[in-house]
């Protein structure tokens, strides 16, 4: 990988110390900026992050007893993972039941697939999930989630004849509760909310009001670019985002857009999607993700 080679080269140049310390830091910061931009991290966020990193590197200087390389990487790692609230794996088990999760996100990001993946994940831990389809726009959205629910043998509710997602959400919530399920996962239609779609943000708000979710989960495609920040912010101001799932990390995209979404919403990343199949869901691991962003 190019990125890896670049970073390694810069670190070793820096260690050989041909240039004065300050210049070495400057070069390192430049190369780091490139790496982050190639990974789709938001431009403003990159500038902010690298400003902090530069300041720390200049102020603190490497302590004598640890390798300079480790120390330098550590600063970068600290700054990036501080965005996630530190180097800790997320707590993914609900604090109460029944627990209501509502999935939102842009068209095609992977909401419906992730809804089924999450249901399957919790089912394996002994919970009783229930899946709800409130997407009344996309043709066969109902059939898609219905077929997935059959594959994992989880109760499912929706109404292919209705065009009122708020009404469906209310009715299906009672259905799920009455069926003695305890994790209720609500899939919603894809939306971006710009221009003519503005009204869809309002609709999303209305669904949330109707079901009062314990957690609104933003589904982000790993390949999304600079728009991730603004999009996440728009979603967040309509319905406060509690958690994030990054999908399609089995591709070549680094997933820096998700980092932007974290910065915009202050939400935690809970899961990542690593394939199309239902079991291909993992609990988010900050260390591995930062490694991926840095190309390490």
């Amino acid at each position, binding site marked *: 990988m190019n990125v890896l080679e670049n970073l390694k080269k810069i670190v070793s140049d820096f260690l050989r110390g041909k240039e004065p310390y300050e210049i070495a830091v400057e070069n390192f910061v430049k190369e780091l900026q490139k790496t982050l931009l*190639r990974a789709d991290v938001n431009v403003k966020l990159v500038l902010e992050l690298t400003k902090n990193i530069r300041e720390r590197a200049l102020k603190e200087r490497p302590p004598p007893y640890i390798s300079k390389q480790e120390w330098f990487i550590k600063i970068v790692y600290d700054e990036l993972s501080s965005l996630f609230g530190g180097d800790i794996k997320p707590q993914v088990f609900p604090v109460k039941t029944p627990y209501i999760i509502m999935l939102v996100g842009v*068209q*095609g990001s992977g909401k419906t697939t992730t809804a089924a993946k999450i249901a399957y994940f919790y089912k394996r831990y002994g919970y009783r999930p229930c899946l709800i389809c409130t997407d009344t726009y996309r043709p066969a959205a109902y059939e*898609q989630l219905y077929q997935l629910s059959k594959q994992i043998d989880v109760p499912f509710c929706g109404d292919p004849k209705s065009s009122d997602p708020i009404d469906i959400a209310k009715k299906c919530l009672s259905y799920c509760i009455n069926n003695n399920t305890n994790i209720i996962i609500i899939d919603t239609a894809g939306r971006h909310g710009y221009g003519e779609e503005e009204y869809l943000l309002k609709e999303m708000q209305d669904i949330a009001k109707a079901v009062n979710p314990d957690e609104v989960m933003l589904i982000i495609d790993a*390949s999304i*670019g600079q728009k991730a920040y603004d999009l996440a912010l728009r979603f967040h101001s309509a319905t406060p985002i509690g958690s994030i799932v990054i999908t399609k990390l089995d*591709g*070549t*995209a680094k997933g820096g857009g998700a980092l932007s979404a974290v910065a915009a919403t202050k939400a935690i990343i809970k899961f990542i999607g690593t394939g199309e199949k239902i079991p291909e869901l993992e609990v988010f691991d900050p260390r591995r993700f930062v490694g991926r962003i840095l190309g390490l």
Partner: protein
Amino acid sequence: KDISRYCDNLLNELIESDVAYDVAEKIVTDIGNRLREIKIPRGTNVEEYINNIVIDVLRKLLDNATSYDFIEYIAKSSEKPVKIVFMGINGVGKTTTIAKVAYMLKKAGVKPVIVAADTFRAGAQEQLKKHSERLGIPFIGGKYGADPAAVAFDGIVFASKNRFDVVLIDTAGRMHIDVDLMNELKKVIKVVKPHIKVLVLDALTGNDAIEQAKKFDEAIGIDGVILTKLDADASGGAAVSVVAGLGKKIFYVGVGQGYDDLIRYSSDIIIRLLFKQSK
């Protein structure tokens, strides 16, 4: 020195518009070189003068991506039915784009058949079938788990027998680095022998757009791109990546979820997005 500051700014702007980093860097280097060569006439507004040069460079580049129209192509083709295969990574908008293309063709008096060779993703068959019912266009599908190449072949046979003009073949979304799935796609291509191989790309994609296009092109050889979801306040950079990074054509762009939300590509559309005032 002023030029290099200007170039740094321009680089950031292009990256903020989702032009892939390496592509943006190359464009900015070229523009920088050009700016160093020219003399700016006295009495002109320097900023405006330079901006016009930049727009000019980008427009020429984006003009190279202008391609033939499907309707023209089908009208001229001596071979019928014309076979068009749509491919791309998961969720970019392949199936919806096929419905839009079918609608456009039907309106132009061309007779299309829609083929659902995605036999994998849940609901994929029903999704395309509903579109074709709404549009009143014949639909050929297959059972889940069936061989996509066989389904595609059925569609072609049906179209030939019934004298349709064009077969639009939908394939399952797949990652460009998934060897098994790329081999499956190669088999579909081998059986179908398409006239046009379309890569569908999501305009919200960042640096990965070029990666996706490169890998599909290496494996299959794409004839051009359809860029979707431009209505999602996209900045158009993905188009620049594909054109400048790979020299590919762009057929159409998707600007919404309705059937008529498909427009013919032109450099204007992308230039407008690249230079719109960001809020």
